[in-house]
């Protein structure tokens, strides 16, 4: 086969490499980077899609910080959720993973049982939990058996967010599997050596298990926080189901992404909503950056 002089096999491979990447490159420019720049511009305008955008400078941002009470409420709710839900979910996933890692009888069955609710999502899963956590529901009946007065969960502003946290305990399967894989990767010899040296369970856990698991935990903390900042479907569906009003009762489920949704799609304030989303984006980037910076203090990488 005659080759043109410039098309060496190496160049040919590189050209094909770029060609194969094309779907991603187009997606990245057209669905991620381009829209981000466009959104930044929109955030400085008044824009309802139908009429041309109107330049406001920092008007939207000023409005949000100075006058918007919903912004403060939603930020409070969201931060509450991030701070409470993330550690509890991860700790529970860790408990399940440690139990599964003991290689007790029936471990495969238990793994399937613990994981399977995680695949359930969307509106149907939320309905199930609104039902389970209703004041005459299964959980409160269970609590009554041990003479604990059950809260009104999604009907009581003080208990809506704890209700969400309880619901999420049912769906920690992904974290559990990640931690289980991490536990499996810890060499048994380390535990054997520690045993011989007389290290207690507690010491073994903090000196061997936790350091070697820290990369997996770090991954879960970072992705868990990013996800928790963007909670939407469950909050929206719960408030629509129990109170017919997004964010209700008493704005206790008005999360940040719900606020963005309401501004953009109910009030068609696209510029304002874009400004809100950029504020959230910057908050998430700062939080993630701080975690990356702090990670060198607690995440242990071998070699």
């Amino acid at each position, binding site marked *: 086969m005659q080759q043109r002089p410039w098309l060496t096999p190496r160049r040919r491979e590189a050209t094909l490499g770029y060609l194969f*990447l094309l779907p*991603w490159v187009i997606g990245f420019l057209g669905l991620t980077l381009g829209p*981000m720049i466009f959104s930044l511009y929109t955030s400085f305008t008044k824009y309802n899609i139908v009429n041309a955008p109107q330049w406001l400078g920092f008007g939207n941002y000023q409005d949000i910080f100075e006058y918007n009470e919903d912004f403060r409420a939603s930020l409070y709710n969201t931060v509450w959720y991030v701070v409470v839900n993330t550690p509890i979910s991860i700790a529970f996933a860790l408990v399940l993973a440690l139990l599964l890692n003991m290689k007790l009888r029936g471990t495969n069955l238990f793994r399937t049982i613990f994981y399977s609710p995680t695949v359930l*999502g969307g509106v*149907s899963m939320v309905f199930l939990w609104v039902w389970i956590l209703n004041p005459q529901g299964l959980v409160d009946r269970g609590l009554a058996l041990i003479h604990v007065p059950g809260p009104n969960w999604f009907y009581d502003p003080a208990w809506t967010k704890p209700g969400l946290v309880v619901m999420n305990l049912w769906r920690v399967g992904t974290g559990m599997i990640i931690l289980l894989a991490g536990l499996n990767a810890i060499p048994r010899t380390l535990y054997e050596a520690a045993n011989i040296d007389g290290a207690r369970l507690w010491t073994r856990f903090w000196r061997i298990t936790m350091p070697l698991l820290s990369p997996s935990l770090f991954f879960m903390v970072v992705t868990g926080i990013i996800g928790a900042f963007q909670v939407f479907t469950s909050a929206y569906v719960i408030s629509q189901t*129990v109170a017919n009003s997004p964010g209700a009762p008493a704005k206790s489920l008005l999360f940040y992404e719900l606020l*963005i949704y309401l501004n953009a799609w109910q009030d068609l304030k696209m510029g304002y*909503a874009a400004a809100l989303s950029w504020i959230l984006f910057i908050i998430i980037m700062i939080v993630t950056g701080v975690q990356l910076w702090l990670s060198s203090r607690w995440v242990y990488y071998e070699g």
Partner: protein
Amino acid sequence: MAVAAKRAGGNHLMDWQQNQRVQSAIGRTLAFLLICALAILFVVPLVWMFVTSIKTQAQVFDPNWIPHPAQWRNYPDALSSAPFLLYFRNTVIITGISMFGTVLSSSLVAYSFARLRFPGREALFMLVLATMMLPGIVTLIPVYIIFSKMHWVNTFLPLTVPAFFGGGAFNIFLLRQFFRNIPMELSESARIDGASELRIWWQIILPLSGPILTAITIFSFQGAWEDYLGPLIYLDNQALWTLQLGLTVFEASGGGIPMWHWMMAASLVIMSPVLIVFFLAQRYFIESIAISGIKG
């Protein structure tokens, strides 16, 4: 060395070891009881959901576990309270196309990252990984504006076409890990035989990647089947609604008191395909998540 040192300790160590064995037997029994209790707690919600779904409306708040009489009619009744057959059809179309797009484009892109050499490859791959950390909310509004300018609102296009452009950073990452472990000699001998890269991808690499392709197919099935926000913002026209949007007829906004027995019946039917697929292919599912954690 530690062993020798301790052996010298004599009897004391033997007592200690025996003690340790008894303790660990007790510990394992307690752990087993705990794991059983937790397993029951995990299963109970779904059982209760099913029990509720066959109760009469009058029985719904009764605490009995075996409804008498069982009202199976709830299923056809619940599913005829909205055009669920139409919603099912719409959901199948959207889910099918986006699954196909995801697998096709993520495997092409991952093939390039895993098996072709070109300048800037590692930097570009880092960029792919970085987009995994990007909160989706920041592109939601501008992408909506773009699609609405293209007159794509109230079509399935915004929910299907994006899948063909990369198929998601997480999927690219998983496939790349898998493709890298297929011996390079296979590609090289195919190249000598004159096979094109497209053909190597299609006829050699993809057939060898069954488990990971299965996992990605299931992830994208689950994602599209359960997606709520996407259909919510792009589909106003009720004739285009998906199953998740259809379920909202049972919300308080539908008027009156919630029909819990119907909600549970319809929800159970709608979540069952995902559960069935999971039970059939859980091995692939769980293995691919494990990979992501170790490498992530």
